[in-house]
């Protein structure tokens, strides 16, 4: 049996309900009920005090945030989005080089934007060790893929929407070609497997 833990007046009205409507005119019941009227009077005083404190804080110089705090927060938000998970590109005794999944994903979307008739949607990137066999590669149902053996083994799963009337196989092949060229040129590794799923048509 659940126990109700909501403070109530003798008339059965909850304090929370009266507090929630303190800025509105009293209801018919509240106009007649002494307990509700007393509660409203006290809560109105509390509301006024709360508002006053809030206003005071707004104009209190000691409550001002440090200069640049908003920019600092926004910098971190942007960085957080960009970081995501990271993919190791190169590892040596004198240092490692990683790339964020988001950076790769942006590059892929940018390549897709160059192909008329497709809009990129979700892009997921997986990494598999260079030793992984090509025979192990996974092609999801309804997708097509291609692979190269250069660099870390990326598995790119890109979902797109296509314009009605385009020749889908040809357009998808052009998209794959664009991605396969963009990644080596801009990152310096092979594009690996590029799985493309046409999941929808969009209105032109």
């Amino acid at each position, binding site marked *: 049996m659940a126990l109700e833990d909501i403070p109530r007046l003798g008339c059965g009205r909850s304090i929370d309900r009266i507090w929630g409507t303190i800025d509105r005119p009293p209801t018919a019941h509240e106009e007649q009920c002494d307990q509700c009227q007393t509660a409203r009077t006290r809560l109105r005083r509390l509301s006024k005090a709360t508002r006053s404190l809030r206003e005071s804080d707004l104009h209190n110089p000691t409550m001002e945030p440090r200069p640049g705090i908003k920019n600092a927060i926004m910098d971190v938000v942007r960085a957080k989005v*960009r970081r995501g998970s990271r993919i190791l590109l190169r590892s040596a005794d*004198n240092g490692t080089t990683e790339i964020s999944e988001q950076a790769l994903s942006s590059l892929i979307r940018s390549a897709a934007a160059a192909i008329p008739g497709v809009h990129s949607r979700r892009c997921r990137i997986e990494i598999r060790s260079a030793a992984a066999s090509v025979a192990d590669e996974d092609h999801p149902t309804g997708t097509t893929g291609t692979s190269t053996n250069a660099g870390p083994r990326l598995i790119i799963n890109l979902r797109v929407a296509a314009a009605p009337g385009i020749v889908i196989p040809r357009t998808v092949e052009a998209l794959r070609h664009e991605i396969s060229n963009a990644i080596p040129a801009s990152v310096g590794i092979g594009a690996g497997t590029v799985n493309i799923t046409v999941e929808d048509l969009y209105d032109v």
Partner: protein
Amino acid sequence: MSDQSLQGAIITSQLIASIATRTTLETPGVLRLEPTNQSFLPRLGPAALQNLRHPGSQNGTYQHDGVTATISDGTARVHLYIATDIAYTALHVAEKVQQRVRESISHTGLTPGAIDVTILAIERHHRTTIM
């Protein structure tokens, strides 16, 4: 007093971070250093800064926007978070950064340790024209 202890007093992790920052930003293909969560906390105030630094350690870790530098036993390690220009090959840019930062650190008398680079963004520079 030995030369080694004199170096330890002068070359701080903050200086290494500053050198690494300048060297990185001067490397062709680097657009900027990217701030991280770790570098954000010190900007909140002294209390947060205190929590991040090793108390009483002059040769500890220094973190600023997009760079973390650590000095330990005469070896300087650096981690850089960068954004690169899409007109350049990011992996080559990162290798160049590592090489140049290593050289810069060696000029301080410290031994360059691992120079880790994380590429957080690849973007088109506003003056870049792709042919």
